[in-house]
């Protein structure tokens, strides 16, 4: 069923107790509902990712997206905020974890919460989803084509992001990975490495690599959009979160 929903911008306590902006969408339902933290991509706290937050609410999940650039550019437009965050070195991993924890706490504290929370992110948010799922007590995680999970970025990339290989043994929950066969970041070879490492540590990881799709195949506003992969991918997300967050 499609739920009626309420969507709004609010403030939550993020990393280090900082007050940060967040966008939430919740189903208009008295039933116990799971929560999902949505991590936006590097272009920011934008309209397209807010649409994804609302999509979760329409499907019966309370969803929240913390604005990872709240500190660099409070009140700025998403593109200006993303540029400011990039110019100042990007989002530190520890801060990301703290901000996702804040969103998770908000979701769990809802009177209608069933106590379960998942996390999902796209692109850079895919990597940050893996980071959050290895750092926090989550119930399910979906990594959509996150790059630099098992390899470091080239040394000349000044934003200080590293691979998450050392954290993978701490994955706290079942994880679904959705990738494109034509993507090079992450490439199918990098996905195979991720599968191997998580299997070695006995982690519950399922993944699907879509033929004919590259990076960002879920992004409806970009030429990379692949309807077949996106529709099937969403179906996999509903099935996965339905099993682990109910």
């Amino acid at each position, binding site marked *: 069923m499609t739920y009626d929903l309420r969507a709004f911008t609010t403030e939550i306590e993020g990393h280090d107790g900082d007050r940060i902006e967040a966008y939430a969408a919740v189903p208009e339902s008295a039933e116990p509902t799971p929560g999902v933290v949505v991590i936006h991509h590097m272009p920011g706290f934008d309209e397209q990712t807010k649409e994804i937050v609302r999509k979760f609410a329409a499907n019966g999940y309370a969803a929240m997206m913390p604005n990872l650039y709240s500190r660099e550019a409070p009140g700025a437009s998403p593109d*200006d905020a993303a540029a400011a965050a*990039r110019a100042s070195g990007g989002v530190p991993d520890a801060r990301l974890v703290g901000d996702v924890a804040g969103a998770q706490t908000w979701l769990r504290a809802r009177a209608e919460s069933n106590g379960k929370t998942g996390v999902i992110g796209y692109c850079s948010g895919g990597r940050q989803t893996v980071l959050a799922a290895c750092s926090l007590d989550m119930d399910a995680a979906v990594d959509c084509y996150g790059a630099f999970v098992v390899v470091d970025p080239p040394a*000349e*990339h000044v934003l200080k992001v590293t691979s998450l290989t050392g954290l993978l043994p701490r994955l706290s929950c079942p994880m679904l990975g959705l990738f494109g066969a034509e993507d*090079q970041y992450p490439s199918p070879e990098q996905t195979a490495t991720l599968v191997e490492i998580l299997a070695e540590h006995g982690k519950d990881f399922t993944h699907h690599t879509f033929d004919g799709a590259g990076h960002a195949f879920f992004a409806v506003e970009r030429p990379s959009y692949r309807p077949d992969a996106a529709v099937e991918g969403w179906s996999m997300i509903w099935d996965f979160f339905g099993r682990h967050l109910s």
Partner: protein
Amino acid sequence: MCTYNTETLDVYGSAKGATGWFRATQATVYFDHPVHHAAGHALMVDLLNPSRGASARVGLELDAESARDLANAILRTLDSVPEGLLDH
């Protein structure tokens, strides 16, 4: 992918953004997902003045060929400046 591929440099000049002219003190150059240009990736340039807030920004999103043409045009223009004018 979100490439994280970014160069940051100090600049001295002015730029005209959404709220008018401002002193540009910093530039970032990167190849990543554009906000407006209809492509998966683009060469982006931001001219910024962080002391004036995040909206003190002029952003460019160009396809790779256009960006190279622009960079070459800038260099050709500077190379053809009559002797002595670059000092002022």
